[in-house]
């Protein structure tokens, strides 16, 4: 199945209640697939094409505030428009699933794949101190699995979760195993607006505190939640790291290309491993820190001008050399140039 379509099918099967979106390449297949496959008939899931990404994310806010499993998807320029709403959702502590099929920027940029929204996704994106849980699939299979996982984490922490993929994963066809249809569940959360219960005070959803003391309390609560997420939810894949003298790191589709470069390096006798973060937030800080004691250098390969590399550097805190290699603006690196960069910047550098 095509990545975007598989993700859409996974949303139906995960028992999502509502999808709100606005078309943009390279992710329009998500809403097209949903419209064509009549989830309303299959599960009762609502699908609506909004008038803009701003409207779509606010529809998500409304549905999520009712305790429903709501989601939206977009690509970079549309994701920028959603940031206001995402900040409100994070502030009001509502669960939802966001999908960004990243394309090259800045501006209207290009419709080709990119990873240049790492900062936007991982460091907040909108205003205020908040975090999204960010999942980075490298395969169509992971895009599917992360839809289910994403909703689970969103409700576990009452926090927005983002699947950050890119034009490659969204557009490519791969074999995929779909999970069985899960039932939609009637929400019964005390925080959700379900209609006031006669013997209880009314519920309200808000991200507003007029008193700074109260707003600081909200921020303390959010930060405590983020520490909990950092403790429990880090995910990564390690390949050939046991005997590694050097380390590649990359996420998403770029990690697959980097893996090829790793195999080529191994064939040449260079002992290099690959650490692939599957969660970009929470970041595998401890794992990098451990490997930093073992390896002589880390090359961070990204389809951007150097974003995740900052988190790698912070994680190893100067213990080992960390360099970046990137292609950007919609260009995809090839394994030869990645291997070359390892030899030049890390081994020879």
């Amino acid at each position, binding site marked *: 199945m095509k990545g975007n379509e598989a993700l859409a099918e996974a949303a139906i099967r995960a028992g999502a209640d509502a999808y709100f979106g606005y078309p943009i390449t390279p992710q329009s297949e998500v809403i097209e697939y949903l419209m064509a496959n009549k989830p309303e008939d299959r599960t009762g899931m609502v699908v609506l094409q909004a008038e803009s990404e701003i409207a779509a994310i606010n529809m998500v806010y409304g*549905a999520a505030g009712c305790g429903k499993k709501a989601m939206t998807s977009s690509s970079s320029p549309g994701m920028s428009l959603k940031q206001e709403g995402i900040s409100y959702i994070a502030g009001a502590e509502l669960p939802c699933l966001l999908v960004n099929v990243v394309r090259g920027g800045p501006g209207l940029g290009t419709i080709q794949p990119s990873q240049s929204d790492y900062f936007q996704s991982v460091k907040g994106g909108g205003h205020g101190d908040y975090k999204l849980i960010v999942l980075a699939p490298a395969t169509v299979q992971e895009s599917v699995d992360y839809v289910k996982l994403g909703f689970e984490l969103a409700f576990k922490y009452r926090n927005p979760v983002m699947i950050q993929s890119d034009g490659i994963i969204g557009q490519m066809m791969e074999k995929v195993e779909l999970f069985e249809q899960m039932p939609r569940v009637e929400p019964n959360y005390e925080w959700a607006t379900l209609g006031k219960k006669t013997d209880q005070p009314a519920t309200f959803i808000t991200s*507003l505190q007029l008193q700074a003391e109260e707003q600081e309390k909200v921020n303390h609560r959010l930060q405590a939640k983020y520490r909990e997420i950092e403790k429990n939810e880090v995910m990564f894949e390690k390949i050939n790291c046991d005997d590694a003298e050097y380390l590649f790191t990359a996420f998403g589709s770029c990690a697959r290309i980097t893996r090829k470069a790793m195999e080529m390096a191994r064939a040449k006798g260079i002992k290099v491993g690959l650490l692939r973060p599957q969660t970009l937030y929470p970041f595998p800080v401890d794992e990098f820190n451990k490997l930093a004691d073992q390896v002589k250098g880390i090359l961070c390969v990204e389809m951007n001008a150097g974003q995740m590399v900052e988190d790698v550097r912070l994680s190893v805190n100067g213990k080992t050399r960390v360099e970046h290699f990137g292609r950007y603006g919609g260009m995809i690196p090839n394994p030869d140039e990645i291997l070359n960069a390892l030899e030049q910047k890390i081994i020879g550098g």
Partner: protein
Amino acid sequence: MSENLIKPENLVYQKTEALTDRVMHYCPGCGHGTAHRILAEVIQEMGIMDQTIGVAPVGCSVLAYYYFNVDMQEAAHGRAPAVATGIKRVFPEKFVFTYQGDGDLAAIGTAETIHAINRGENILIVFVNNGIYGMTGGQMAPTTLVGMKSSTSPFGRDTKTMGSPLKITELIAQLPGAYFVTRQAVHKPGNVRKAKKAIRKALEYQKLDKGTCFVEIVSNCPSNWKMTPVQSNKWMEENMFPYYPLGDIKVPEDN
């Protein structure tokens, strides 16, 4: 306590349960309190307090969730119709209303307003038009009258550079999704009664799944108009009503 003192047959006015006991922060003489009150009364009288979800976006009424004794969501500035869409689509059987100011509804949220109504979202939009940005201290609104002074039109609204006051209500009445569109006021008892009736009608239509109902309330802003409450009501009658005439703008054909 009043229940004990006054015999039921003599009772003419009673506290509504659909408002909480919290003291409202609205300025003296402001129409928001009355508009809240009649909406709450209708919700109680229809017996739908447990089935109503309200949305109040940013503006003077941002804290409406403290006052309405029903479940509420606070929305970003201008986004209430989109938030209400999200709620209504997942809870079609609930009663959903938005309560929006003119800056919210007719400037930053114009797109959300028009498109929610164009889809015929089965919600009630209460639109409080005071011709000014109340909450942020009296800046020009899309509905500010020609020549009217505000902190961002200190020499009066000049149509050449600032455009004309937007009759958003007439505009949205054109949309097929709009079922019932009316303009009311709450500054006199007669008007309060009419406005309440209009809200009641709107929520009855919602029960019948008729589409968007839109109740504009032309109101005052004594603080930012820099007038006493009495002066502001007089000014509203003399200046706002001629431009924003009261009455029904679109009534259901099948009625």
